[in-house]
């Protein structure tokens, strides 16, 4: 009888403990590194206004659909985001290295409403050669299920999202992910 009572108490305590553990672990920010429903799915389409310096090469609007069929690197950034300043030179170097190989890079300024001047200054500061657009109402950011900035998505030639990187990209990340895109038969 006494043993039975101890067992009941142990079960109740374990159940409450399991609930607490579930609640705590569910909100763990580390989950963000593995949570993306977009992986393996078609890249959500968007058409956004380009900054003026890219009009000559790309026109006034950048539509993702027009660039499907080649590997894509889509980087989301904001003018207030300090890690974005760290990764911008890396992206520019990667663009210079992989652009001629047929990889299309695009920068999307998001969560940065009406910050066009700041966006222009950011682009000019790093002399970004790849096209950059403004997602003024951040709706494309929601479509791409952003948690914050910077985030970078890698899309293969079939238009499928194959990887996502949260935080500033490094040359190693670019080499690994873009290398995989190119090996995948772009």
């Amino acid at each position, binding site marked *: 009888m006494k043993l039975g009572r101890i067992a*009941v108490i142990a079960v*109740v305590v374990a*159940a*409450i403990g*399991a*609930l607490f553990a*579930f609640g705590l672990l*569910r*909100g763990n*920010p580390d*989950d963000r590194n593995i*949570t*993306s*429903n*977009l992986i393996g799915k078609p890249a959500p389409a968007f058409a956004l206004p380009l900054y003026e310096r890219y009009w000559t090469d790309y026109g006034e609007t950048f539509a993702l659909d027009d660039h499907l069929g080649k590997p894509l690197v889509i980087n989301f950034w904001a003018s207030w985001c300090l890690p974005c300043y760290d990764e911008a030179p890396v992206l520019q170097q990667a663009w210079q290295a992989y652009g001629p190989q047929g990889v299309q890079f695009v920068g999307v300024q998001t*969560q*940065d*409403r009406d910050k066009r001047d700041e966006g222009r200054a950011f682009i000019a500061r790093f002399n970004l050669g790849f096209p950059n657009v403004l997602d003024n*109402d*951040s*709706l494309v*950011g*929601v*479509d*791409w*299920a*952003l*948690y*914050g900035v910077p985030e970078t998505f890698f899309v293969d030639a079939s238009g499928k999202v194959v990887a996502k990187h949260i935080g500033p990209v490094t040359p190693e990340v670019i080499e690994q992910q873009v290398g995989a895109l190119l090996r995948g038969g772009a």
Partner: protein
Amino acid sequence: MTGEAGLRTGVLAKVRALAVARALVVARSLATVRGALALLALAVLAFGPFATAQDASSAQSVQIGSRAFDISRNLRCPVCTSESVADSSAEIAQQMRALIQEKIDEGLSDAQIYTFFQERYGDWILLDPPKRGVHLLVWLLPVVVGAAAVVVVISMARRWLAASAKTEDVSQADLERVRAALAGAAKVDDAATDVESDKGG
């Protein structure tokens, strides 16, 4: 709070403090009913702009209906820690609230709107875990534990009631001893009462 809003609040706080200080000086110098009235009037002047600024600040946020608010309360703000889309002032949360209102205006049901966000962010975006899979445990465990607690309380209460209602067989000799003890105690009580009354008299 934005830098501009913070600056505005800071300036208003200084203006308010200045006005209240000025009102105190006026009230002291007059020391009459008129002084008190002046204090009240200046206090109203001091707090008035603050209230207006608060209204203006909240008016900057996106206006959404109660249904959109209820939905946004059940969605997690992606860039925050343990904060709902309804509670957060982050830009993405504001955009999500506007997006929810847009979806409602388009005629989507609540379930369709939740699905829209789940398809993009996964179940993580829901503050209430979905009632399926491993998440079902979160919904069922409290019910099971609650039911178990009720069963335990009822069984314990029954046991206590049964124990209190149970009669014991007592021998005649024991009964006589108890009666004698009670009678003796009563005599002692009477004697003590007499002594007390003698002292009082």
